[in-house]
């Protein structure tokens, strides 16, 4: 859930607070020097419409010698104005000049720390500047506590910067220590409750964090942000209904702020809670609303969440639409280099490609998802979450691609031989990825905490997660799942746990128990919402059953209607009737996902026609293969070629690859 909250809370709003604060501090410095009280008040209350106020256009930023005679205070003052006007590089240059002029001036370091924290996201550098500022500050003014108001304010600001830098660098205990130090000197500011609650949450002290956030909300400290924080904490604590109410309040408060408000954050978070409690319709509504808002469309999390929800429901066209909409929204910002969303976008698109049978494209995208840098800032999703999700999907895509290499390419000894090295490499890589993912999930992600179905911030694809769990000895998995189910009161989640166990049994030779569990899952899966689970259960059952079996045919038809690309992805067979013209060519269908069978009346029929084709004044015979369905609910598929092999490849491609835009 950790989602867009932090964008609002730390990235956007707080830095502005930093800038304003630094501005005020500088005003104080100037005030001390000039001693003109009226001017100070005017500077403190800058009116954006004041025609007499100094603005950045009057500041020279290019004349190399223009700054030679300026004092440090003047340089800092100008830098502040420039940063305020979003002339960031000009502002930075002024600060660097000030730094070179006097390397012992702590205020310069303080402003540079704020600049790197707010505008660049280079937290390591921000920390470096903050610590240097703190050292110089104490060298000049002595050790705290201070009685002077200005010194107290500056020291408080430095501690704030330090806590934020540590927080961004995942040093939560360090951040909390600084916050403790902050309060020990009697400092307080409106950001404090939210930040402390966040740090406590990161340290796993959820109940304490809830208390802090509640007190903060009561004290009126940044109500939107604090309520959002409280909502997240309540959700983590299992109080989902309460958290939804809190999010509702947060949305209302943010909405009331007009263009300054950022309601997409609590909306996105509420969507995540709804998804967690299996209220997919409400989750969809929340995310759709979030993506339609100005502050929601430009950040990937709401779009990503919506896409992943649609993938669970096999609504690939919508996935495509959502990601396209997001991309067009981001295109408004030509200078954003995409670090904050590129990997997550590749993940969503890669998964859609995988499920629609475009495995080569899926592999490319998922590799990008793993390799691309992802800017997580302080969002709850971590690099490991993304890596784990992408690695599983990539392993699945590699295996699916291997199957398609067998199924969709021209048969023949040499074709198989040529594909052998690639298949071997794919298989080894897939196994290796699965192994690494298991390690990551267990060792890096708190003992597989993501096994808790739809765990917030997890990037795993829960319906197919069982593929990773196959290698775990059944006895160990049973114990782990027992612990999970005992702690999980959501009845729809039980479906997932049963599926994992069933898949594990099937992989470890306990077919009877495995089939029983998977069949139970298939029977109790919900329409529309659990489509991907059903597809996965069907895949598992079909792999176990004999294609000549009547049950197999029934399941095959179900799978075909839901997600026909899976036949080629998994190497499953679709039983079809065939016309007599194909009798002599049955051998050529051996490697394809079709199983020609005229012993039963089947819902699918394959027929062969030959038709003359004229091209470049030359007439030649063309082979046409057509797959039709008896009830014709999905139309017919056709493949053409100059010989039967080509026609088979063509029809297999058209039947078992889905169009994500259709």
């Amino acid at each position: 859930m950790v989602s867009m909250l932090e964008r609002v809370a730390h990235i956007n709003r707080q830095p502005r607070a930093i800038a304003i604060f630094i501005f005020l501090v500088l005003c104080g410095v100037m005030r001390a020097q000039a001693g003109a009280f009226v001017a100070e008040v005017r500077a403190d209350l800058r009116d954006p419409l004041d025609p007499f106020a100094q603005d950045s256009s009057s500041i020279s930023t290019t004349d190399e010698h223009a700054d030679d005679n300026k004092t440090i205070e003047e340089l800092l003052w100008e830098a502040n104005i420039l940063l305020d006007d979003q002339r960031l590089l000009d502002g930075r240059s002024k600060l660097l000049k000030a730094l070179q002029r006097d390397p012992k001036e702590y205020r310069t370091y303080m402003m540079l720390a704020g600049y790197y924290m707010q505008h660049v996201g280079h937290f390591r550098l921000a920390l470096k500047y903050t610590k240097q500022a703190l050292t110089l500050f104490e060298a000049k003014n002595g050790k705290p506590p201070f009685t002077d108001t200005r010194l107290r304010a500056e020291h408080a600001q430095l501690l704030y910067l330090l806590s934020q830098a540590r927080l961004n660098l995942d040093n939560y205990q360090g951040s909390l220590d600084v916050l403790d130090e902050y309060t020990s000197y009697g400092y307080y500011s409106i950001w404090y409750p939210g930040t402390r609650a966040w740090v406590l949450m990161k340290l796993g002290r959820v109940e304490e964090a809830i208390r802090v956030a509640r007190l903060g909300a009561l004290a009126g400290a940044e109500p939107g942000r604090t309520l959002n924080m409280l909502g997240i904490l309540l959700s983590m604590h299992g109080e989902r209904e309460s958290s939804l109410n809190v999010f509702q309040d947060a949305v209302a408060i943010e909405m009331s702020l007009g263009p300054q408000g950022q309601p997409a954050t609590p909306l996105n978070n509420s969507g995540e809670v709804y998804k967690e409690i299996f209220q997919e319709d409400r989750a969809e509504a929340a995310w759709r609303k979030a993506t339609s808002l100005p502050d929601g469309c430009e950040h990937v999390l709401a779009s990503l969440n919506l896409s992943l929800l649609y993938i669970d429901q096999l609504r690939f066209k919508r996935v495509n639409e959502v990601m396209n909409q997001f991309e067009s929204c981001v295109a408004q910002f030509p200078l954003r280099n995409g670090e904050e969303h590129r990997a997550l976008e590749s993940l969503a698109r890669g998964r859609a490609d995988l499920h629609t049978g475009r495995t080569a494209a899926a592999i490319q995208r998922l590799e990008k998802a793993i390799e691309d840098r992802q800017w997580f800032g302080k969002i709850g999703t971590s690099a490991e979450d993304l890596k784990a999700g992408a690695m599983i999907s990539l392993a699945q895509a590699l295996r699916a691609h291997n199957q398609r290499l067998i199924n969709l390419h021209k048969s023949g000894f040499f074709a198989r031989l040529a594909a052998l090295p690639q298949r071997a490499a794919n298989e080894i890589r897939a196994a290796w990825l699965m192994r690494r993912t298991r390690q990551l999930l267990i060792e890096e992600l708190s003992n597989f905490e993501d096994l808790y179905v739809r765990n917030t911030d997890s990037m795993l694809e829960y319906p197919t997660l069982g593929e990773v769990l196959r290698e775990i000895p059944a006895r160990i998995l049973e114990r782990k799942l027992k612990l999970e189910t005992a702690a999980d009161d959501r009845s729809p989640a039980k479906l997932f746990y049963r599926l994992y166990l069933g898949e594990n049994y099937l992989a470890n030779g306990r077919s009877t128990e495995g089939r029983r569990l998977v069949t139970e899952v298939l029977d109790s899966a919900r329409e529309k919402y659990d489509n991907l689970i059903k597809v996965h259960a069907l895949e598992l059952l079909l792999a176990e059953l004999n294609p000549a079996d009547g049950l197999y045919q029934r399941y095959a038809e179900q799978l075909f209607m839901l997600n026909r690309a899976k036949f080629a992805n998994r190497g499953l067979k679709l039983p079809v009737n065939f016309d007599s013209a194909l009798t002599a060519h049955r051998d050529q269908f051996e490697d394809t996902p079709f199983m020609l069978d005229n012993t039963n009346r089947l819902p699918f029929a394959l027929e062969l026609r030959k038709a003359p084709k004229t091209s470049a004044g030359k007439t030649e015979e063309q082979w046409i293969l057509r797959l039709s369905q008896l009830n014709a609910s999905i139309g017919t598929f056709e493949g053409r070629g100059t010989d039967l092999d080509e026609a088979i490849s063509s029809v297999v491609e058209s039947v078992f690859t889905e169009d994500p835009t259709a």
Partner: protein
Amino acid sequence: MSVHPARPPFIEIPNRRIFMLVVFLRACFMCTLLVLINHLIPLGTSLRLLMPAVGCGVIVGSVLAFSTLRTRGFLSLLLAAYLIFHLLRIFAAWIPFASPELVLRPFVIFEHLGLALFAFGFATALSWIFWRHRQASTLEILCLGALAVTLLAGHRNYNFQNPQLLSSLAWDFGLQPLTALVAAGLIILAFVPGYLLAISPPGRPQQLPVGRARWRTLLSSRDLRAVWRTPADNTVIRVGDQVQRGRPAWPWVIALLILVFGGIAGISRGVFLYYSREALSRTANGVGQEKGEGLSPLTFHSALGSSNQPAAVVRLEGDYRENPYSPMLYLREGALSEFAGNEMTQAAREFDQDVSGIDPGSNYQGTEDATLLQRVPVVQSVYLLTEHKTAFTLDYPLSINQLKLPEDKRFRAGYRAYSIAPGWVLDSIADLETGDPRWSQQVREHYLKPHPDPRYRELAEKIVRDAPSNVQKSGAISEYLSKNATYTLTPNHDVKDGEDPVVPFLFGDMRGYCVHFAHATVYMLRALGIPARIGTGYLTDLSQSKDGHILLRMSDRHAWAEVYVAGRGWLPFDTQPEKVESHADTQIDMKLLEELMGILGPGEEILPNKTIEAEAGIEPPSVSYLPDRSLIYMLAALLLILLSVAKLYMRYGWALTSDPRTRLRRSYASIVSLLCDLGLERRFGETREEFRERASRRFGPDLLRLTALVNALKYAPGGVTTVDRRAVDALRSADRKLVRRTAKWRHALGWFNPASLVLIFSRSRW
């Protein structure tokens, strides 16, 4: 009593020290390979676990190779190890951990142990094959070579900064990454035959003298291989034989080493010079760095590829919001305005005065043209990572001043440029005139000198038929090329000397790279009477910058057409081909950029690194996936238990059987193992009798008094029908005496000595 060899005539361990040296080298080598593999594919299991496993594997494999064990026995051992592991894994799954933290722990531990076992088995098998099969060494070399190639393959497509490991090392030594790459390649190349020579069977040392004498032999041999070769008649080369009569070879060895390393350095340098002088343009989109009147840095032959080698870091010192080409940024290095028959070349210094043309180590002061309007000042700091002959800046520079370089050898030069950059909206110049009214007739003619081929004019007129102004005509021509031509680095045009290289592009297949596009545009513009020239330098995408820092790569080098617009100056009229066949758009290496940003930041004296030394979360955590230290302790305990069991078997195995002959043999083995633990072991080639004498000298008389009987039992088991019980008792008594005679601390230490374990596998040793 007939004696037959009890073990197959396998390779003898020729010389213990040489053997140990080879084993040690192979273990080190395999561990290095493991590190490299881990670098390429993160293994997920700590190297602290895997490296000992590999090391042990090499040792065990080598020891087993010299035992009497046959191949099927060896395979059975490996299989048994796997089965035991699997059984333990199953057993571990039954351990009823109930706490959520521990429930998955056995699985994780066995995942790591499984990989360690695989590494161990693999190293064991390789070592076994290495010693047993002479061809295996060749295979091993091939595998190692393939691995080296894979490791170094990152540099392909001219990514000379890859592998990062090597290039970082090169930067640290102030070398170019390419030089380091070539040097690494040559060293590997030299190493492979050297290693092959050392380990190949003819070269195995055969009973060389021990100690310093061996090295004397080696260094005094004229023909080094003679020492390592087994003579055909199996005679042993000894010190003092004909080998020693040759003149000492060590001066030759030193000279050879100097030659080899000199050669490597020379070749590396030569390749670098060739690259930087001759091939640079071909790896930089055809845009090289030639400077001087009448010369052109552009080449028309197929470009070799697009190099991602970092060329420079540019730091914008201020905002440049008015950039009309946003997010693209043109950094001009030179201008080609002289038409020289078949290509554009650099003109005399009196032309193109807006280009600084200076080398990056010089300062420059230009004069401001007051007639140029709507330009904005932009300050840039440029830090060069590769050699450049000319400084490049934003159009156009008023001053260039040298910068103090950071304390890092990778930066070649640094300068700060003050430019008056374009600050207009492109649409606003559509109706402006081209050319400068102040130009003399000579200058005007210079910039308008057309190509003699009339087809340029015909095509140009056809394209610009509806365009009213010269600026719009220029736009129409670049748009035409953008729509109709294909960008490719390999146009493969067959152009002979003296022929126009643009013809096969513009009037042929319309396939080419920026050099073709720029020339074609300029020829057509000049044919229409529009003053034009070619600008060269870098074109970069600002959306891939960070904090105003831009990492320029060789693939960003570019050539573009320019038109002089009155009141604005020289403006790029660049093509943006819609059809792109090659030149993949690669992402900037942000890690490298951030690293360079960190170096370019305020210096050490201003912002010391130690400010954040003690901060948690700063350095990336070391890659270690071991759950905790308990695993290491557990492994150590396991090893200790295994060692103890084996030792107990060696010492008291005699008690497990009632057969007097076996008891005798085992008792003898027990006492030999004890001697071995105490530091007295049987040497190679030493008979049991000789060993007995030696042992008696050290530990008292008649310690191994029944050696003759044991020999008979071993070599003629049929000849010895009965063994007197007293013989066994005598041995046991000797054993007890030995124990009494030696200090307890020696026994305790001896218990941890693994040397006697070898006896389990090597019956010939006791």
